[in-house]
């Protein structure tokens, strides 16, 4: 996060855009195949990959200071806390006593 910030070469932006398009196509394609429970896993893996590309390159986190990395990961960790502890209720609610 130096001033003036790291300038990413244009080529990188276009490559990332291309990769995002490929992933979009892939996620639609895979949705039409019956993979059982694996469908959702595939969809989410692709979405996470896409989001990671956007965060790292479009949002420059790859070139950012440690503090920004910490902030971004804190956001993710808290999201995981919210989802996992909530699901801990729903997944065990009707288990036998």
């Amino acid at each position, binding site marked *: 996060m130096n001033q003036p910030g790291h300038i990413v070469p244009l080529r990188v932006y276009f490559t990332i855009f291309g990769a995002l398009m490929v992933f979009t196509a892939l996620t639609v394609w895979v949705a039409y195949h019956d993979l059982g429970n694996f469908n959702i896993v595939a969809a989410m893996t692709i979405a996470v990959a896409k989001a990671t590309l956007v965060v790292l390159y479009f949002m420059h986190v790859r070139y950012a200071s440690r503090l920004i990395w910490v902030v971004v990961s804190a956001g993710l960790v808290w999201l995981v806390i919210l989802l996992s502890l909530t699901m801990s209720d729903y997944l*065990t609610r009707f288990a036998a006593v």
Partner: protein
Amino acid sequence: MEASLERREHYLNVSYGIKSWLLTTDHKRIALLYLATITLFFFVGGAFAVLMRLELITPKGDLVSAETYNKLFTMHGVMMIFFFLSPSVPATLGNFLVPMMIGARDLAFPRINLLSWYVFIFGGVLGLGAAAMGGVDTGWTFYTPYSSTYSNSAVVLTAVGAFFAGFSSILTGLNFIVTIHKMRAPGLQWFRLPLFIWAHYATSLIMILGTPVVAIAIVLVALERLFRIGIFDPNLGGDPVLFQHLFWFYSHPAVYIMILPAMGVISEIVACFSRRRVFGYRFVAFASLSIAVIGFLVWGHHMFVSGQSIYAGMVFSFLSFLVAVPSAVKVFNWMATMYKGAISYHTPMLYAFGFLGLFTVGGLTGLFLATLAVDVHVHDTYFIVAHFHYIMVGGTVMAYMGGIHFWWPKITGRLYPEAWGRFSALIVFLGFNLTFFPQFLLGYLGMPRRYHAYPEEFQVLNVMSSAGASILGIGYLIPMIYLIWSMRYGKPAGDNPWRATGLEWQTSSPPPTENFEETPLVTAPPYAYAKEEEEATVVH
């Protein structure tokens, strides 16, 4: 001295007129704007409490109707939690002191700071407007499906008001975090920060990570009421317990929004009036952070009998006990700070004593509630009411009052009348215990909360509680009067009447608009109260 107070230019007299206040971006003036507004909300909330306590003197519901009573406790809870206690310490003392304590000229985003006050006011107007339009009756917890489908009161208005109050606290927290990271004076490393700053940093984390979740929960309730988009609607197979999850994901951490800044105040007061560095500084600092983090993992302890999975209940119970440990560490460190200190009995210190005792009682009864089998019995009884008033009124409000007195000379440049201060601190302490101790007994006896009428055998304890509340009310009115009085007639305080060591005391009182004549350079840890440490702290 009197003369110099008038002659010197400071933040209060640089400009006059309503506009110079309403458009100010000076964090100190914004703090005072907040102070005025939350005091108003406190007295509104207090008036609701007075009416409730009057109703509860007799077992029959004779003073107000059941409907009115329900609105009273709801609006009491909403006003007190969202519009008074959550912003209390951070938005007033925090706003005033965070930049000063780190040697900055202002918060990182002064205009966002002002915006946060307007957002807050807007929320407050909606809240008061809802009260004027007949009020709400859902309880401050807004549980669905009552709030989303059955209640015919001003739910949406109040909920949106609370939403804006939350948004305002997000802005405050964001500002604090950026300020503390980026604006510290040269030499002010993390472990040289006052514990007040650590506490506010931890609080800000909760504000930004928790508040959005309750915001969306509130939005969903509003959508359900307005457009029948029933995310929690049991008739569609929706789960009302899910609302409780989202609500408490914020509202449990929110209780630490209400206690952590108060703990920061106590650290400053105890150190100053014992003339000792806070014992175990690093442990107290890290305790704040770990309370903030672990505090996010325990929300399910409000839902032990809600139909939540019993296994989830056990996990949440376990984690709730873990969060008690850092609180215990803090209490013990404050006690150790007093050990062999040079303790004086100024008003702020009396409030700090009160805090230590009452927070301990409130916290330890919190452990009763985290204990599963016991909570089944006391959940939603007056035991809970007693628990949280012990912490929030006995703890936070005490610390808040202590802090206001402690920094009053800095804020106004004048002293409050010490004798009156001590007297009302005592009244508050006595009135408080008489109000809320009987409620523990009532709770274990089984008196449910949010009850407009109750069986006769509970009357004696309720009468005691109501009597205590009137004493407590007087205890809050007195400072209100003499503090206002002292703004004009109080003795000029000088820059540092307590001979305290924080950076905020190294500048004049009231401080100049830019806080310091020169950016201070910090070379040593805080709280250099012992003689031999005094010199080395601040070099200009």
